[in-house]
């Protein structure tokens, strides 16, 4: 069904190497609007590298990225790419530790706020109106993620699970066209995993976000994703629906190793 649609993002023949290590070797993938796509693979397969290339944190050596039908220039800075509508969370939390949860999520709105420095210094009319308007939007996200009670808590003092949730909130606040989640459930217990899975599904179904995520918990991936791409040692070894992946011999081999003879 997805195949008929034009992909939101198309990565074509991506190569990248760090020194002698070839991190990605001729990887192509598409992300279609409205889907939840997962990138899985053993450790060191190049999953995070792929996300880093998609949001412009790394520049690919070869290959090209096409977002919304337009080829992206290699010189484009990450903040310009963010302005195009790609937001992400990080594997190892990258919250702004000195700010409150509210401040962190407000940061997600930074591209949408246009009051100039003089207007902000006066905090008058336009600037105040804008601040209130975006505060409202942020409050919706706070409600959505059920973190009303920690609004004013400094991010650095929050427990790990809530920090992950705040970071998700920050990415959601940017209202991206494409949301990249790098291991949103890493290091969580079952309950917290279920919570996050619920938020990811709701963000996809109710708010209509397109999501690409990396996750190691196969149960969650198989349950919530529409499509899966499997990487191994920088090569794409499989792609398809959860059912297809489950029975793919190459994938089983990559994860479990090969039985001797």
């Amino acid at each position, binding site marked *: 069904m997805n195949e008929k649609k034009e992909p939101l993002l198309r990565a074509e023949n991506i190569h990248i190497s760090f020194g002698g290590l070839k991190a990605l070797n001729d990887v192509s993938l598409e992300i279609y609007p409205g889907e939840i796509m997962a990138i899985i693979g053993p450790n060191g397969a190049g999953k995070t590298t792929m996300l880093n290339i998609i949001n412009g944190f790394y520049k690919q050596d070869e290959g090209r990225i096409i977002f919304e039908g337009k080829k992206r220039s290699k010189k484009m800075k*990450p*903040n310009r790419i963010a*302005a195009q509508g790609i937001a992400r969370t990080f594997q190892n939390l990258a919250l702004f530790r000195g*700010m409150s949860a509210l401040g962190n999520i407000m*940061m997600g709105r930074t591209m949408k706020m246009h009051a100039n420095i003089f207007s*902000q210094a006066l905090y008058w009319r336009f600037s105040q109106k804008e601040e209130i308007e975006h505060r409202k939007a942020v409050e919706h996200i706070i409600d959505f993620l059920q973190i009303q009670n920690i609004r004013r808590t400094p991010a650095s003092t929050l427990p790990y699970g809530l920090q992950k949730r705040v970071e998700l909130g920050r990415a959601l606040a940017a209202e991206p066209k494409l949301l990249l989640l790098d291991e949103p459930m890493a290091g969580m217990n079952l309950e917290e995993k279920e919570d996050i899975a619920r938020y990811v599904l709701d963000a996809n179904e109710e708010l209509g976000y397109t999501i690409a995520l990396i996750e190691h918990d196969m149960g969650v991936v198989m349950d919530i994703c529409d499509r899966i791409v499997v990487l191994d040692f920088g090569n794409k070894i499989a792609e398809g629906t959860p059912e297809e992946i489950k029975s793919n011999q190459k994938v089983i081999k990559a994860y479990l190793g090969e039985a001797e003879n």
Partner: protein
Amino acid sequence: MFYRECSNFKDSYASDMAIFPIPLDRWGFIFMLFMAFVVVPLFTSEYFITNIIIPFYCFALAAFGLNVLAGYAGQISIGHAAFMAVGAYASFNLYGRLGLPLVPSILGGGLISAAVGTIFGLPSLRIKGFYLAISTLASQFIIEWVIVHWKWVSGGVFGTIEAPKMFLFGFIPLDTAVKKYYLTLCLMTVLMTFGKNLVRGQLGRNWMAIRDVDFAAEIIGVNLYRDKLIAFAVSTFYAGVAGALICFTYVGAANIEEFNVMVSFAMMGMIIVGGLGTVLGSFLGAGFFVMLPIGINQFLGSFMDVVPADILANIESILFGGLIVFFLIVEPYGMARLWHTIKDKMRLWPFPY
């Protein structure tokens, strides 16, 4: 018991985002303004105003400038006194030579300082942390050298020019300490209000994001280069205005020795002792560094007969240094945090359960 948030319901985002959401804080602030505008000029001596309060205001302004850069945006500058010097000499020349009115020339000094500061902020686009600190230290020496050797600006090798007679709006002479005091106070109040608005708005959040995790800030859409340079510009603008005010209202002359590297270090000390990334901390730190040495001096003056003067001078430095260490051990996040801890305790007092 007296300080509480109870029955203080916020029914709009505007009231929730006010600077002082708790009424008692608001009244406390109004009380401080009343003290500053009415009580101090009416009931204190001229010596107290010129030698303690005016430099306190000036350094609070300068410390806030450095706080914007180091405390909010996370870009360390240990050459900030040089930008005060730029502001001082620029405003002197604007006023004395070009004949601009007083207030515009003070603000103009700030603007020129901001332009110079932006240029010296360019290295921050490539380097950070200690390396940036060293490059800003270089700015201190470069600017000092240029000011001393550019005779049109500084009027000779000693780098000193006398202040001309000052007139506000062209006809009100600023001759008494109280008039100078009001000029300083008004400018400081207005600029601090603007500064507070900046740091609590989106720009301030961008700065804090750059300070905390710069790559995450960039990925969420912050233009690092632009916002770092704006931080340098705003910061050095405040430093420049503070330098101009020091020369016009406190010293009465522009003297390069007023802005040597020791002053830069003292300003760094002010914001660390006062509290990085807080407006209140800029005031507390400036108060600590301006008033405490005078207080210690007065206190030690009573031992004049018993102890020789040169030893007393050393004891003064030792005491001051010891107090800095003491405050940093008691509260590493600065006196502003100490104040917040006290307020948190007050909330429950006298029934802490």
